[in-house]
């Protein structure tokens, strides 16, 4: 217990990767430039493991890389057809659960869900579209909330609490009826202290939380995922900045 943390090794696919005691498999992988697909994870924010895309096989057992501590000698399979197929199916589930009509969404080209689907080679959503009805909240002067595109990753919930020092969002309801709610008496965003510069307003991987009047700022060809693949490590900074994207 008292000994200094020693670097240890785990094996992800064919690579030996060092880790420091206390790191998760995801932490170690990202630090070693190994991509494990993920949507609900963001470095620096407490991981939750709800999207399940980062599921890897640790000694044969499926575990979410973002929440599982790295331990010396783990044999981890990540970039293998079975897992990528499962990730594609999970992505399809996220698509059909909400309304993800890319051509009409301001986030298109900057959307992590879309980029993930490209990465996984998703040609169609496969499952029956659920076409849910969820409330749009356009009350805030500069931020827009379209719940129909929310994938319940809870990044905004955690970013608001942990980074912004606020508590603007929460997830309510259960099962397929779960939805993002706003922590105000009215339930409206306008009554919250959310600001466009908050991480919570910028971290949304999809087009559920959008900064108003910046849609389509970047033309086709200049958008984040026109220029980057989601599998590039360390895109977070670009991603957060890209959401405002008023230059380019």
């Amino acid at each position: 217990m008292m000994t200094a943390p020693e670097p240890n090794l785990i094996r992800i696919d064919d690579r030996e990767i060092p880790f420091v005691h206390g790191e998760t498999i995801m932490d170690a992988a990202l630090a070693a430039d190994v991509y494990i697909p993920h949507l609900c994870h963001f470095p620096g924010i407490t991981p939750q493991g709800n999207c399940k895309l980062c599921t890897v096989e640790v000694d044969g057992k499926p575990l979410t890389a973002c929440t599982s501590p790295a331990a010396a000698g783990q044999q981890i399979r990540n970039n293998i057809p079975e897992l990528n197929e499962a990730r594609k199916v999970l992505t399809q589930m996220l698509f059909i659960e909400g309304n993800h009509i890319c051509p009409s969404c301001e986030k298109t080209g900057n959307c992590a869900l879309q980029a993930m689907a490209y990465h996984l080679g998703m040609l169609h959503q496969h499952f029956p579209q659920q076409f849910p009805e969820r409330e749009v909240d356009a009350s805030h002067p500069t931020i827009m909330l379209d719940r129909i595109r929310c994938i319940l990753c809870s990044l905004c919930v955690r970013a608001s609490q942990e980074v912004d020092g606020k508590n603007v969002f929460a997830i309510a309801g259960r099962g397929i009826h779960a939805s993002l709610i706003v922590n105000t008496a009215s339930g409206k965003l306008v009554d919250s202290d959310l600001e466009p510069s908050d991480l919570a307003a910028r971290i949304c991987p999809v087009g559920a939380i959008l900064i108003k009047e910046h849609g389509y700022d970047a033309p086709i060809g200049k958008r984040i995922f026109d220029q980057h693949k989601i599998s590039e490590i360390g895109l977070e900074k670009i991603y957060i900045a890209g959401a405002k994207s008023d230059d380019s």
Partner: protein
Amino acid sequence: MTHKPKLKLATTSLAGCFGCHMSFLDMDERIVELLEHIEFDRSPFTDIKQLGHCDIGLIEGGVCNAENVHVLRTYRASCRILVAVGACAINGGVPAMRNHFSLQECLEEVYLKSPDMINPHIPNDPELPLLLDKVYPVHEVVKVDYFLPGCPPSADTFYRFLSELIEGKEPQIGKVELRYD
């Protein structure tokens, strides 16, 4: 090559904007080359009214009314390979944005509440196909063999896909370029 029988290709647009068809034409002079191996059957590009037995059917647009269902089924029955082309065919696309509302709300908004309506009423001419409660993706009504995403899929995507079919290869959609917008 010329001895090989030409592949018969039919196309149609259901609840779509014909943008996919326009994009198809964007392959420009490559169409001439393609026509050495492909023969159009029923399609907005031709004036053929009757759908014959085809090798390939390209379906643009989602399924929004009873007529769409009939047309789609006819294509499915007549085409060896049925392809859902573009965002609307694949997940309903922009027309599916009406799915937030009931049919009644949609029709009332357009035909009863629009300004300057003369004799406002919900159209009920028997010639008009009945609308489905929602706009559905093609693959929820018939079996689909291939999907060409994009809004629209690029001319290159069409060209590559058809070339691969002509060559008798398994089409490698999305391996080169994949986009949904």
